[in-house]
């Protein structure tokens, strides 16, 4: 167990191999993400009926909920990659962790903005100190902390290791924040409005939602691959394989 994990990781973790591997897979992931996204949005915006309580405003759910889910999911991926990076010092794991952070922050930001746009017609306010919204805001700050710490170091690998450590502290913190914010809400008897109550969600609405969740996941992989590829070129600037790419692409013309 402790032997083959690093061995396997080292093989796929070899930057030139991963660079080619990610380069071939990325267009496929992107294409699948776009197809799934198109199907999901068609189902959500056109086919699904309006909600009997919220009218058409509920249609924000098809981007809001998948984004919220991605914000948490990417944080988990980042924490796992961070752990691998710290224990086995694998460059690729560092790149995966650090390049996941901006994507996760983007999804968390989308969650907050769309939640706010949804909340205005439903609650009559742009922002409420509801447990979920507050936790989401704290999550955004966690992401920003990781990104900020990463860029504060002059040596990028050192920065990646420090930020990876922060990411791991953060993942311990997320459930604690959620618990404490919940408790805080009961104490202060704040808004008890729930967008998604315990009510059952109809099938017409559920399948577009699930399709969108798949689409955002596929998109994450595509975006992550692109980012890690760019990162590896930067980190390995002195190596031969990067030089070959640099000189080779001049001949064939630039393509991403």
């Amino acid at each position: 167990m402790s032997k083959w994990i690093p061995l396997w990781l080292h093989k796929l973790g070899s930057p030139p191999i991963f660079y080619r591997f990610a380069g071939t897979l990325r267009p496929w992931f992107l294409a699948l993400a776009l197809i799934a996204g198109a199907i999901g949005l068609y189902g959500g915006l056109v086919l699904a009926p309006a909600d009997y309580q919220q009218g058409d405003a509920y249609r924000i759910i098809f981007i809001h909920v998948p984004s919220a889910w991605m914000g948490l999911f990417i944080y988990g991926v980042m924490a796992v990659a961070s752990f691998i990076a710290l224990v086995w010092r694998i460059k690729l794991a560092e790149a995966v962790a650090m390049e996941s952070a901006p994507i996760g922050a983007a999804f968390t930001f989308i969650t907050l903005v769309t939640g706010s746009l949804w909340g205005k017609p439903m609650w009559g306010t742009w922002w409420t100190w509801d447990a979920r919204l507050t936790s989401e805001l704290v999550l955004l700050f966690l992401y920003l902390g990781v990104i900020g710490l990463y860029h504060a170091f002059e040596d990028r690998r050192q920065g990646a290791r420090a930020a990876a450590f922060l990411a791991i502290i953060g993942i311990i913190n997320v459930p604690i924040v959620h618990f404490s914010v919940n408790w805080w809400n009961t104490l202060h008897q704040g808004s008890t409005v729930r967008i998604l109550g315990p009510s059952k969600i109809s099938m017409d609405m559920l399948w577009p939602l699930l399709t969108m969740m798949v689409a955002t996941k596929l998109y994450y992989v595509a975006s992550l691959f692109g980012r890690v590829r760019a990162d590896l070129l930067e980190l390995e600037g002195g190596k031969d394989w990067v030089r070959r790419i640099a000189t080779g692409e001049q001949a064939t013309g630039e393509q991403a």
Partner: protein
Amino acid sequence: MSQFLAMGGYAAYVWPAYAVFFLVLLADFISPMLRRRRNLRELRARLARQTARQQRTASPAVNP
């Protein structure tokens, strides 16, 4: 169509939400592509400078 765009009167909330979603993800997707282009350009410039330096140090030896 216009009925679809009106979103039952909630167009002012639904469409901005979707716009934010797509714009943020577009920016997220394009930024590493730009970064990669810039890095490759810088790397090429560095390699060119290196070969230029080598030629400069080599030429006096040929032509003293």
